[in-house]
């Protein structure tokens, strides 16, 4: 365990932050600009995972396991969410025969 965290610490923290920030942004952009729901779901997963990476890095730098514990929580919750999300997508596909997010716009004004 000690070795892993010291191995992680070889790379400066800033790199992790930049990396996960970049990942987060990529996910964000994907959410914003993709119209396929599946792709968007994946982008949200990407954002979650960038957070996971960041947490892990901090956890290692702070020598505090709590961060990594939290990562597990996030993974579980994300799995549950994706399960729900995909079922919603399936349901939607049945109703509108499409996975384009902008097709769903009857609720407005």
């Amino acid at each position, binding site marked *: 365990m000690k070795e892993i965290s010291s191995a992680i610490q070889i790379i400066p923290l800033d790199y992790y932050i930049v990396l996960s920030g970049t990942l987060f942004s990529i996910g*964000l952009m994907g*959410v*914003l600009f993709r*119209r396929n729901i599946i792709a968007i779901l994946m982008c949200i997963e990407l954002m979650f995972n960038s957070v996971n990476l960041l947490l892990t890095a901090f956890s290692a730098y702070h020598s505090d396991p709590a961060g990594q514990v939290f990562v597990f929580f996030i993974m579980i919750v994300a799995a549950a969410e994706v399960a729900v999300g995909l079922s919603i997508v399936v349901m939607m596909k049945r109703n509108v025969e499409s996975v384009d*997010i*902008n097709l*769903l*716009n*009857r*609720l*407005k*004004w």
Partner: protein
Amino acid sequence: MVGAITFINLAWLVPVFPLLGFLIIGFSGKGLMHNMAGIIGSSTILLSFLYTATLFFVMKSSGQDSATITLFNWIAIGSMNIPFAFLIDHLSLTMMLVITGVGTLIHIYSIGYMHHDERVNTFFAQMNLFTFSMLLLVMGANYLVLFIGWEGVGLCSYLLIGFWFKNPAYNYAARKAFIINRIGDLGFILGIILLFFTFKTVTFSEVFAQAASFPTGTTVITLITILLLVGAVGKSAQIPLFTWLPDAMAGPTPVSALIHAATMVTAGIYMIARSSILYNLAPITLNIIIGIGLATALMAAIIGLKQNDIKKVLAYSTVSQLGYMFLALGLGAYSTAVFHVTTHAFFKALLFLGAGSVIHAMGGEQDIMKMGGLKSKMPITYWTFLAATLAISGIPPFSGFFSKDLILNKAFEHNIILYILALGGALITCFYMFRLLYLVFFGEQRLTNAHPHESPQAMTIPLIVLAVLSVFGGFLNVPSLFGGNSNFGSFLQSATTSLSMEEMSHSTETILILVSLALLGLVIYFAYSTFVTRSSVPKADSEPMSFFGKVVYNKFYIDEIYDALFEKPLGFLSDFFFNKVENAVLDPAVDGIGTLTARFGTLVRKLQQGNMSFYLFAMVAGILLFIIFILII
């Protein structure tokens, strides 16, 4: 002696009688038997008259100059204490006698005159109410009680002018009278308030007692007197508020006689005479009064020359005579003014009643162009009318001579130009009165389908009584020139303080009288030659007239001017306020706030596009803005 005091203290019964009459007639409605209303109405006033007459002698014998009877505290708050009280002194006694005396006669006359009217009960009820208010006016011991009567008579005048309410023109005249009176009343009430703040009381005796300490010409007194004067101008139909009186002739003729000739219109004169002490302290106001009085006297007389309606002629003559009274007031001759009020009450009431008798006989016709030759058909009316005409023209020894001569003398003492103008007015008066007389009673009957007949006794007896008073009324106040001792004037001495002026010599006085008599004779002759010898008849309305004639005929266009100056702008303003301000600015402004918010609401609502991409963008944008926000701050 105790009896006398009790009797005086019960003087509040005087106005109560007519009030009771009003209530009885008013509440019994149609239940009253025929003529009962008239009998009740007349007898209550007669009771008042008898009480007043007795009171007069009781006061005289007990040597009391004045008595105050307080009934209860009307308004008593803080330092304001206004009792509901009556003041009986010589001035109010005089007025009470005139009101109840002439009032009784006119009531009796009305029994005959209104005989055929279906609303005779209402008529008598309102007449009684009027008498009540008028008595309140002259008996009030302070300005506010006076004001009750003041407004009360205005109300009755309104009701009685519009007595035949089916006619919109009459209603309009009634409304006009009330509103113009109200304009005066506003000045009056403001005057009372200023008076209150100056003296901390509105009770006559207290005000006058304090006023003694004010020097002549004090601004506040001048202001008070001017404000009070505004009220008097309205009530007594002086320039510029006189236009309502001629229109007020829309009412039944006894109303014109009682209210618009004998009593109500003289309220202004009474009030100023009552406040003589204040007016004496305000020479500026007195000069204004002189100006107003003289101008009114002349203007109304000139208009009277060209009127064809018998009552309109008398109405302008009333305005003109009121102008003379104002002139007298302005000259500081208060008792003279009151004297003229008294004689005027006699002969003007007589004139109106006579005119009423004529109208009655002519079946409602009022146009003198269509009359004529009534002398033989209605002898009593003719003779009494003649007596009154001589009286108003100032022919000795008729009553008008004594009172008017006094005024002219005072004018002469003051300023010769005043005298000439006043005399001119008197001559014009004489001319149009004789024109009226000749056109109505002399010559041929011009309306063929009427069958004039003498009026019933109920109408003629008051005529005769009034004629007697008109003839001999002047002897109440025989000047020293004729060996009298000016009883009337000295009687009022205790209640009004006339400005002292040096007495003119008897020789001057004699000359003045002779001059005026000669001129009067000429005028009567001229009138005779025009209307009897040449039997010229006034032109019908449609025929062309000279410019001056047209102006006079149209009463100097005063009504039109007022219409353009006040009524039209008021109507315009009303429309403007309602359509352009209320409905176009204020209301939309408030609604506009609502509408604007609602518009904004629609905008917010439309922002909710329903599009997922947009929501995601909005959220990111929001987050970014907040990041920038917190980093900047």
